[in-house]
């Protein structure tokens, strides 16, 4: 099949739009798609130019309107996307295609900015190489002339040395631009919970974070709770985290029973997930704040990968209850509060905390809630408590907290993740977005903040099986055009394994290459170099290696190697040349031999021997 280079450019642009669609505002994606489609339809050159200019201006306005500034990453990425789609309008000559190549390279780099994973990188790289290959083709090069040996000499050292340069290139900074306080939300790390806004639960397999060095043999996997954020405040019928006035010093954990390293890959990250229990963060690549509610928040929201080491005592329960916490834990501004409290306590008075709690559980159970991924819509928490039927963890946690507070128990919503998947290839635990969970903590004076999972009361299987298995069981079919296909048909164990393998590859590449930052580089280089060396030197050094190794390789592979005897003869000629006797091209061995013999009588025997052996090998 003959591939048209214009179609190739188009398909690459379309593919890039698809990849970016998740990260870029929909308006930009739609705009870029429109521009591409228009470029295919309009052939009149006047209209092309007019529309191109119009689209460019429109695009700029659109970006300005959506992002308010041109300086955030997304705005830049959007601009490149629009530029590349506009470039599709003029793909006629060779140089146009080369310019398209440059723009596509820039676009690929932009994809790395919004989606920094190894697979995307590999895909982008392959795409660019493929595109370049086609540019060479339209330049009328007979590519069969590109010898494999030469390409090997060219590409392998280039790749190796670009890695070397990558490692030695001095990193000045962690990035000059901060991505700012963008409120891009996702379920496990929500900073607010609104019963009205809860829609269908999306089971995205996107990896949120990976945990390494976890001694998983001690823990039953489905029972792992990863806490991130605490939702305290309830007003305007929305649960919000009220962390600001709970800031405190990070505690010292006396006897941690789990030590692990977590890498957050989802962006943007705000709260750091830790195992439920009492945790302390030992090391982190970014600054964070600790709150006495046992949560850790990054000082600024970031799109960078976050790495930190944590120690947790999973049994030790947090007993901190400041007066502020008590006040927050009991605060419930709601008109239906008393009515619901009455329903729970059913006119029993002077109950102690434990009995109150039992009453709440009894009431919660009596409601016979059902678990559903697509629950009905509710006006607010009270609506759910009084009339609700179907819901998921957020509904249950919010309503349980409401009920506990209504009867006077200090309670809070904990959002986080539950469960995870072990990757046997690098012994890590992968926690995905579909593992997102919410539960409740209630304070008892003697025991501290106890974890209560109301979801477990509704569907114990959700906790026992883990999220993905449970949801598979819950909805074993995929519907497609009114037909239901069992999910089990689509699941192959080998495919799963391959997926996990790719995942481990991706994560190891991410940790080795992608997260090679300033500190890491300084650590590696300072261990290799003498103390008072500037960090720029290794870079210069590696560049010099590159500049000298390649010519050497080329010389090595390009010299014509002659036979052993011929080389011996050539050595003899070189020796004679050093003695001042150079052989003319037209001179035969015998003539040269006799000339040398006359000039150097003392060496005549050696010369004759050399000449004789040469003649014997080649002419006899």
């Amino acid at each position: 099949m003959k591939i048209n280079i214009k179609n190739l450019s188009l398909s690459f642009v379309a593919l890039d739009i698809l990849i970016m669609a998740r990260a870029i505002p929909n308006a930009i994606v739609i705009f870029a798609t429109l521009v591409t489609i228009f470029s295919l339809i309009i052939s009149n050159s006047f209209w092309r130019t007019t529309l191109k200019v119009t689209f460019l201006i429109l695009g700029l306005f659109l970006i300005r309107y959506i992002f308010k500034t041109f300086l955030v990453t997304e705005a830049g990425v959007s601009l490149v996307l629009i530029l590349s789609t506009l470039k599709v309008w003029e793909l006629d000559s060779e140089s146009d295609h080369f310019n398209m190549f440059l723009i596509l390279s820039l676009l690929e780099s932009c994809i790395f900015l919004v989606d920094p994973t190894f697979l995307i990188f590999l895909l982008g790289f392959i795409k660019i190489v493929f595109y370049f290959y086609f540019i060479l083709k339209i330049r009328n090069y007979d590519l069969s002339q590109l010898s494999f040996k030469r390409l090997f000499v060219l590409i392998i050292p280039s790749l190796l040395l670009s890695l070397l340069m990558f490692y030695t290139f001095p990193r000045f900074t962690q990035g000059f631009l901060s991505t700012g306080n963008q409120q891009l939300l996702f379920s496990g790390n929500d900073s607010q919970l609104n019963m009205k806004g809860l829609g269908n639960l999306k089971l995205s397999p996107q990896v949120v974070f990976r945990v390494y060095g976890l001694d998983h043999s001690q823990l039953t996997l489905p029972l792992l709770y990863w806490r991130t954020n605490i939702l305290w405040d309830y007003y305007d019928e929305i649960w919000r985290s009220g962390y600001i006035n709970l800031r405190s010093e990070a505690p010292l954990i006396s006897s941690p029973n789990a030590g692990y390293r977590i890498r957050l890959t989802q962006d943007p990250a705000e709260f750091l997930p830790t195992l439920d229990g009492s945790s302390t963060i030992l090391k982190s690549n970014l600054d964070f704040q600790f709150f006495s509610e046992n949560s850790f928040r990054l000082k600024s929201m970031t799109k960078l990968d976050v790495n930190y080491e944590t120690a947790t005592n999973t049994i030790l329960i947090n007993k901190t209850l400041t007066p502020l916490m008590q006040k927050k834990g009991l605060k419930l501004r709601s008109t239906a509060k008393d009515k619901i409290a009455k329903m729970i306590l059913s006119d029993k008075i002077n109950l102690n905390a434990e009995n109150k709690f039992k009453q709440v559980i009894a009431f919660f159970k009596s409601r016979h809630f059902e678990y559903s991924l697509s629950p009905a819509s509710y006006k607010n928490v009270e609506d759910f408590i009084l009339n609700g039927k179907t819901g998921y963890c957020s509904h249950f946690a919010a309503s349980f907290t409401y009920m506990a507070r209504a009867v006077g128990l200090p309670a809070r919503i904990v959002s986080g993740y539950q469960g995870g998947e072990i990757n046997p290839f690098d012994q890590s635990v992968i926690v995905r977005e579909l593992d997102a969970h919410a539960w409740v903590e209630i304070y008892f004076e003697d025991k501290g903040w106890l974890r209560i999972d109301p979801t477990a009361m509704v569907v114990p299987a959700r906790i026992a099986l883990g999220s993905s298995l449970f949801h598979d069981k819950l909805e074993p079919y995929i519907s497609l055009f009114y037909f239901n296909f069992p999910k089990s048909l689509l699941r192959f164990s080998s495919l799963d394994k391959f997926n996990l393998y790719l995942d481990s590859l991706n994560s190891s590449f991410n940790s080795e290459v992608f997260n090679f930052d300033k500190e890491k580089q300084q650590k590696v280089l300072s261990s290799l170099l003498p103390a008072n060396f500037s960090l720029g030197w290794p870079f210069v050094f590696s560049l010099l290696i590159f500049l000298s190794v390649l010519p050497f390789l080329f010389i090595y592979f390009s010299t014509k190697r002659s036979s052993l005897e011929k080389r011996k003869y050539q050595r003899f000629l070189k020796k004679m040349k050093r003695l001042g006797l150079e052989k003319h091209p037209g001179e035969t061995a015998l003539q040269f031999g006799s000339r040398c013999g006359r000039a150097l009588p003392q060496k005549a025997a050696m010369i004759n021997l050399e000449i004789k052996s040469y003649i014997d090998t080649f002419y006899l």
Partner: protein
Amino acid sequence: MDANNNHSITTFINQAQKVILGKEKELKIAFCCFLSGGHLLIEDVPGVGKTTFAKTLAKLLDLSFSRIQFTNDLMPSDLLGVQIFNSTESKFKLIPGPIFHQFILADELNRGTPKTQSALLEAMEEKQVTLDGQTIKLPFPFFVLATQNPRSQIGTHHLPESQLDRFMMKMKIGYPDAAFEINLIARDEHLENLLQLTAVLSPESINQIKNEIESIKVSDELLKYVRRLLENSRLHENFLGLSPRAGRDIVKAAKTWAYLEKRTYVLPDDVQMILPFVIAHRISPFQSQTIEQDQDLARALVNLTHVD
């Protein structure tokens, strides 16, 4: 190498030198040309002994000799012979022309008409003559020694390149050295010497020598060298490109020369030795050049070409 043959070759050169004074190299070259089965073209001024040279060779080799003087009015039939009707036997009888000899001296070849020249050259190439539809084989060995005057005059017909190519070698005899020349002008005894000469090589031993020459080893390296010579001649503007036939002649002559040098293998030295003679008439793009200029060209080609 047969010691007997070896001896007779030495005798051949020594005997010939009795008549042709001080021209050992030329004799050897001419002998080499004969042994290689080629034909020789001698270009020289009159009076340097071209005819004596040819006669000496013929005598020593025990070959039947004939001399054809080329003129404007020499017709092919004068050369090849005619069929005559014999009335007594009422049959046609072939009266063979002078070409039916083993050793032919074609004197002043360039004075003949192109038609006659062609007739001779065809006979040289094919070693047979066609007369009135009748093909007659020429005797073996068949050796043509042609001479021509160096100065082109009006009324002479230059041989075209394609016909020159049929001669294996072109050489000049040149004036004798001072010592020999005194000898030559003082006594007129070389004619007597010529008459006294006896054959040194019989046709059988010539055959034997030719067989031995065939077995001389030519290495790949040498063939590559010869090819480089041909290639360089074709690449440069100063030369007229050499034909593959020239290449074949070079190798043949080099083999014979190696044999004369009493070696069983060919060296580049042999090639360089015979090269000026083999390619002198093929290398020059301009016909008006003298043979010395042509041989200089050949040497330039040698100097230009890498031996190894």
